[in-house]
């Protein structure tokens, strides 16, 4: 049993036993869903169906139904793609990087953050696929033997690197998440009373035993997967940034893109985790496990990564002038003062100023304020991608080709639709899956639980 300093706040409040932890996590799954769940699920489903309708219309008609034109060939689609991939960075960062750093507070949030990651990366993957227009030839991005030569895919292209990066990230995150879920499914299986749920959780839990040898393997697999996923997290968003950084478009052609994108991704991912968890902990009665301290830790991450992002914005601005390249200088002047100034200044306000408020202890421990800022950051990070993508290409080298981008209702419908699909997945997860990592919470109960920390013999040696 590991001990920790007495001045550290306990991670599990109240006087919980191992059985209480099981009860608290399994109750929402075993009870009937509250009315609110059905209302939210209904709303999400309607939005999702509308989005699917827009996608089907788009596939049937062609991508001309988007607001793209000859100058602006990439707009909302790639903005949404990068936005969703960015959101998908928090989960694996929490479960992999924080596991390597032995941060115990991750155990309360890693399960739901990873679920969020997986669903967000699903949504991200949708955009390049539908942007192909002819979805049915999507398999052409894989190096499969074919009858055109064989003509192979271009391994020099960052777009192809992206295919490999996103699919590796998605499948490895999925495996990492599921391996952690198996023992928890077994807990639900062993408690289930109804034959249908018994059967379902029995299939999902793979017949997990809880043998000492299996736990030994489990811990090694978790550690090695964390070690593999850590460089993966950083590589994925770096590769996404290569899509832009390796081009010669002013405003995209920057070497600071990889670290800047990774910091931005973690920033937006944690904001989304806050948005979801603040509602979830309340709705499912998990306040004892995800409490103010957890929220504060996440706000500190938001503050640090937000500061990195702010520094990157200002560096970019300075270098555009300092480089002496007039095209670069104009691209940034145009961002701040051109026709898209409103997008630039919303990005600056949401992403540079708002995280700095987290220096104030009172604000970063306020749940209402955190929820508000998490929404602001999500909006700001969408604008960041919009600013980088649309304002850089709407005015480039040739003034006769300058243009503006106006989204069509299909652009908006597909975007809103992915938010709906995402929430359909997340609500189903919250209803049928253990939202806290049961087995991991139990390992820290004696070291970080309130009743154990306050016990008189906690600091005596055994």
């Amino acid at each position: 049993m590991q001990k920790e300093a007495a001045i550290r706040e306990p991670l599990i409040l109240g006087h919980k036993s191992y059985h209480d932890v099981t009860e608290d996590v399994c109750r929402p799954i075993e009870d009937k869903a509250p009315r609110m769940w059905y209302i939210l699920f209904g709303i999400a489903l309607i939005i999702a169906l509308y989005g699917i309708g827009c996608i089907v219309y788009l596939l049937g008609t062609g991508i001309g139904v988007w607001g793209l034109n000859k100058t602006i060939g990439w707009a909302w689609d790639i903005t949404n793609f990068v936005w969703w991939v960015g959101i998908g960075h928090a989960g694996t960062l929490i479960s992999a990087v924080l596991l390597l750093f032995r941060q115990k507070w991750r155990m309360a949030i890693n399960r739901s953050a990873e679920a969020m990651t997986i669903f967000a990366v699903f949504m991200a993957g949708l955009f390049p696929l539908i942007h192909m227009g002819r979805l049915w030839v999507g398999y052409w991005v894989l190096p499969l033997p074919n009858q055109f030569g064989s003509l192979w895919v271009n391994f020099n292209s960052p777009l192809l690197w992206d295919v490999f990066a996103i699919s590796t990230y998605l499948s490895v995150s999925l495996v990492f998440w599921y391996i952690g879920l198996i023992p928890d499914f077994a807990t639900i299986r062993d408690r289930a009373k109804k034959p249908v749920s018994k059967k379902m959780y029995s299939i999902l839990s793979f017949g997990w035993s809880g043998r000492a040898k299996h736990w030994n393997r489990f811990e090694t697999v978790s550690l090695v997967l964390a070690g593999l996923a850590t460089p993966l997290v950083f590589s994925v968003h770096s590769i996404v940034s290569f899509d832009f950084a390796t081009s010669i478009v002013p405003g995209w052609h920057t070497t600071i893109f990889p670290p800047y994108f990774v910091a931005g991704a973690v920033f937006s991912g944690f904001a989304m985790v806050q948005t979801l968890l603040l509602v979830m902990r309340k709705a499912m009665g998990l306040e004892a496990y995800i409490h103010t301290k957890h929220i504060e830790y996440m706000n500190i991450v938001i503050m640090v990564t937000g500061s990195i992002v702010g520094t990157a914005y200002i560096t970019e601005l300075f270098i555009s002038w300092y480089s002496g390249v007039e095209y670069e200088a104009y691209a940034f002047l145009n961002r701040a003062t051109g026709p898209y100034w409103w997008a630039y200044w919303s990005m600056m306000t949401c992403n540079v100023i708002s995280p700095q408020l987290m220096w104030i202890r009172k604000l970063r421990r306020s749940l209402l304020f955190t929820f508000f800022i998490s929404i602001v950051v999500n909006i700001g990070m969408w604008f960041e991608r919009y600013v980088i993508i649309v304002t850089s290409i709407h005015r480039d080298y040739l003034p006769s080709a300058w243009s503006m981008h106006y989204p069509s209702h299909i652009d908006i419908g597909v975007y809103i639709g992915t938010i709906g699909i995402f929430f359909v997945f997340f609500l189903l997860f919250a209803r049928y899956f253990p939202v806290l990592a049961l087995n991991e919470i139990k390992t820290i109960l004696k070291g970080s639980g309130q009743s154990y920390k306050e016990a008189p013999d906690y600091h005596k040696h055994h």
Partner: protein
Amino acid sequence: MAEKVIYVMYDDEEVLKDGAKSLVSKGIKIAEVFSPFPIHGIDPIIGIKNTRLGIMAFLYGLTGLMLATVGMRFFMVTDWPMNIGGKPNFSYLENMLAFVPVTFEFTVLCAAHGMAITYLLANKTLPGMPAQNPDPRTTDDRFVMEIRISDNLNLS
């Protein structure tokens, strides 16, 4: 005839560990321990060796690295060299930098999935398998020690 076993149920992992230590010091062999979460420090007491899955992951990763290198050399240099932005298409080594991202991703892909599949097979946990634990409470808050009579026939 089914083998005779003794199950000892505990409600605290520290007590189980102390119990296991004193049993082992008396020469009794403990066959298995079932618990709802990993008990740290139980493995050396009941004589469980550390898993070699980490080595397997390394070997799977090495396989992925090799496959990616061989594959990309074949696609981009041997089979159909193309002039893409004037990049060297006649030599793998000179164009290697462009192949680093895919090589890395494929290495991670093979290592992670290889290890995960090996893990599931080694545990004999696959979809639809029957539950292997002796009592449903061992996934909640109980810790069970299994002692087989046949392992301890030398004791009276």
